[in-house]
């Protein structure tokens, strides 16, 4: 009994709320990957082990399963701090902002980089409750600077918006190149 207790002590660590949820999910994910190794990789004929396409994925996933199991055991042995589901809730809340981000990504090729960026920063300012005139002004200045620095000055590859095609002749070329 004393021996088991000693072993348990060895795995003890500081554990944050939600730790075990992550440890479980990661272990399940690793085991899932391990079951997929035969189907998703190839064992080539007349090839030595070190040149096998399957070799490194197997090493990596083997390591994941091993360490994830140990991490999981560590989580089980350590003292729990309450607040597990509140923490998971915090993780899930981030998906709201991921959704806004992806909408922004889809909007850029449609309405153009500058309008989409303005819309994104202004909307987020309102959403996070920081819509003071100062912050909104700052968001406008920030958006314009980002577009000017990256698209006009550094010439990074961001497609021009479809909407720019509808602009009058004089501005259209300018908008297509710089905004």
């Amino acid at each position: 009994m004393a021996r088991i207790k000693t072993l348990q002590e060895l795995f003890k660590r500081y554990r944050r709320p939600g730790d075990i949820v992550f440890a479980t999910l990661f272990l399940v994910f690793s085991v899932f990957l391990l079951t997929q190794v035969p189907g998703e990789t190839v064992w080539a004929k007349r090839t030595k082990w070190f040149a096998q396409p399957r070799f490194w994925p197997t090493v990596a996933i083997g390591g994941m399963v091993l360490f994830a199991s140990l991490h999981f055991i560590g989580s089980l042995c350590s003292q729990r701090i309450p607040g597990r589901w509140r923490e998971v809730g915090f993780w899930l809340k981030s998906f709201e902002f991921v959704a806004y981000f992806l909408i922004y990504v889809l909007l850029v090729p449609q309405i153009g980089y500058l309008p989409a960026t303005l819309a994104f920063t202004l909307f987020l300012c309102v959403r996070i409750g920081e819509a003071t005139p100062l912050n909104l002004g700052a968001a406008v200045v920030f958006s314009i600077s980002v577009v000017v620095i990256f698209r006009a000055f550094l010439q990074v590859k961001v497609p021009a918006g479809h909407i720019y095609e509808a602009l009058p002749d004089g501005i259209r070329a300018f908008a297509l190149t710089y905004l």
Partner: protein
Amino acid sequence: MELILSSLSMLAHWDVLAALLIGSIGGVIIGAIPGVGAAVAIAILLPATFSFEPIVGLTLLLGVYGSSMYGGAIPAVLINTPGTAVNALTTYDGYPMTKKGQGHRALSLAYSASFFGGMFSILCLIVLSPVLAMIAPHFGSREIFLAALMGIILVVVAHRGQVFAAGMLACFGIFLNTIGLEPAKYTKRFTFDQSWLTSGVDLIVVVLGLFAISQALLLLVDKEHQPGSAKVDGNLFSGLRELFAFKRVATVSSSFGVLMGMIPGVGEFTAQFLSYTYAQKTSKDPDLFGKGSPEGLIASEAANNAVPGAAMIPLLALGIPGEALTAMMLSVFYVHNVIPGPQLFQGKLDFVVALYLALFLLNIIVLIFLLSSTGLLLKIIQIPTRFLGVMIMTLSFVGVFSLRNSVTDCAIAAGFGVFGLVLKRLNLPIVPIILGMVLGGIMEVKLRSAMARVHSPLDFIDRPIAAILFIAIILILVLHVRTVIREHKVRLEREEDTSETSTQQG
């Protein structure tokens, strides 16, 4: 001499100098804003630098890398919030000094110690480069494989108390790198018949997600906490003089920084831990540590600033990144078709020296900037954290989307953003994933080419450097096991009071 002249001529272009200036001053500002570290900034800037000349892009990123820790000391000292993670130790002694009304003394010492550390590491680099140029060609495939393996092992065991987590995340990184079409037999690996997985998972997409987007999400979802305001008066130059009184601590700490920077997988935290312990043990006033000791402050800042320069050594000489930021820089080299490794030291030594000189200039620019505009910086750092989240999110988009205008990349990056958020909340390390991706790729390629000439297992380590690396790996593992057993025994002895802060495990 000729070498230095030709390197200087590489730097003497307006675009290189502009990159140096923007990088160094930008780095200080970014470092000073709590919540944005050099990693976030470099991840965002990375794709933008692809269109530059290699020396321009690298100078810009080096500027951000080398100067962010200077800036990070400001909020650490004045408002007890480290600007970047590596300034956390600075708060221990910096903030108590501020509370005693010695804010300007603490800041000035922090700047001076940082400057000393930075310069010391560059001098070491310049002295060491001829030696490196001599040794580097002896690194063949098997030596590089062993060095990369050592890097992975070190990054795992260096995460004391989180070794299992670091191990599983490093393996996850190696796995991520294997996804897609592999180049030797042209078979698909883990693509699940999805066309978007065939080209693999891009390192930069992962980096942007794990570092930048996760930070933005964290700032957006968390409660608002605006950094407090602070003011500093007095002469900031005095620290340079005071540093002389502590030159022993500064030199030893910088040496630890250089050593730990050179070893892949170790980095700032170990260097700081060693220097701080040394400074405390040898101090005449050890009780003052943690309550406002100038020596503690110097140990922390000199050690962390000596690392970036030294971390360039394994990167340039062997093509092996020692931590996340140099791993990101490795991709810049590749994009510009400059392959770091032994050949770079033999064929393009002027390029290497030019990078060192850029680092040298950077430290001077940063010191001048800091001594003259700390007051201004204190205003900038008061950006509301959630607004900062909006800014990082917007910039992350440019970073990911400009790579290849792919919506899928953005979605993958966002996915890694959520993953990074979970890791950050659970206090689990992110760096092993990045190093796993980069070093895993190196190990796969190098093992394949090394084994072609190896017939028996002993052949693998029959060359001197390979043998030394192999012994080092065994030593690291043995020492780690020994430390774990010893810590475990100590903990069992005082079993009652080890509740939640106990340091774990093997």
